[in-house]
């Protein structure tokens, strides 16, 4: 004879319970009033959770009012739409591969021609000094280029809100 704990186990198994188990549970509920009432309450509980009530009135209108579909309301529209880049994993992999290749090249020259590598490093670090005006111009031009590049990237790559 099935006990109440076994009945609850079968109830919890739901659709995963076998046909004989379900039949066994039915037979138990027929003779055990408490389990029968628990089963009925659980069935009501399941029915309540399966129900999908309608969204509140005017919800769709509120959503539509927030979607920036009107071109004049778009803070920043990308005229060409989102540029489809390669998947992130490909870009990440390519960047990692490029870094690895660069490291290998440097390591190769460091091993085969250490003097040549040192000379190249010296040539880079011994560049002639520039005056303050030239230095300021270089920094300013670089900053402007970064700002313009960032703006263009945002304009063309980020979809409008």
């Amino acid at each position, binding site marked *: 004879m099935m006990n109440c704990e076994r009945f*609850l*186990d079968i*109830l*919890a*198994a*739901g*659709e995963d319970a076998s046909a004989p188990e379900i039949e066994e549970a039915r037979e138990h509920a027929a003779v055990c*009033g*408490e389990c029968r*009432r*628990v089963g*009925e*309450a*659980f069935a*009501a*509980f*399941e*029915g*309540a*959770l*399966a*129900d*999908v*009530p*309608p*969204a*509140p009135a005017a*919800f*769709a209108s*509120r*959503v*539509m009012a*927030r*979607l*920036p*579909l009107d071109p004049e309301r778009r803070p920043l529209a990308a005229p060409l*739409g*989102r540029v*489809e880049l390669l998947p992130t994993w490909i870009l990440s992999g390519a960047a990692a591969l490029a870094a690895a290749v660069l490291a290998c090249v440097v390591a190769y020259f460091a091993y085969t021609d250490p003097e040549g590598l040192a000379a190249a490093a010296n040539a880079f670090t011994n560049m002639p000094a520039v005056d303050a005006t030239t230095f300021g111009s270089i920094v300013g031009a670089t900053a402007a280029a970064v700002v313009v590049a960032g703006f263009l990237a945002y304009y063309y790559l980020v*979809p409008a*809100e």
Partner: protein
Amino acid sequence: MARPSEFNEQDVVGRCRAGEQEAWRELVTRYQDMVYAIARRVAGPAAEDAAQETFLRVFRKLHTYRADGGAKFSSWLYRVAYNVACDVVARRRPTGIPADEYEQRYEGPGPEELAGSAEHAGLARAALAEIRPDYRNVLELYYLMGKSYEQVADITALPLGTVKSYIHRGKKEVLASLCRAGVADSLAGGV
């Protein structure tokens, strides 16, 4: 409610991508009930914010949805709805308190969902409020999605085995809660 299967979702999604306002209205109208239901189950009192934010995020991220992998738009949308609702809950949690220690005020299914009988409604609400929040979320999605383990796993990004385990344990906790609440006593004569 309107069922998503009654219309060509890929056609509507394509027109939404083209920025067609009427297509967006159709999409929102078609899916608002399910999105709102997910938001209510996960985010409770913040459901309105979560549901609205879902459609805004869909608007911004629609280009990332790809139908060629065989993924249904509705599944993708429900996953967005679930993630947004989880984000809303996390944002409202006081800082410094881990998620598993923060017991969100749980409102459970709305009164219209539990309109059947007052006794059952109260017991169901109490039973749901008692179980672990992660079990509860998965359990509620399970019933919302027509008892599909696969769809719940897809939405929550949990392994299928974990979903099945959570649902089983959630049901056990609900049943234990119903027994503790004295279903037999409270419903005696009423059922």
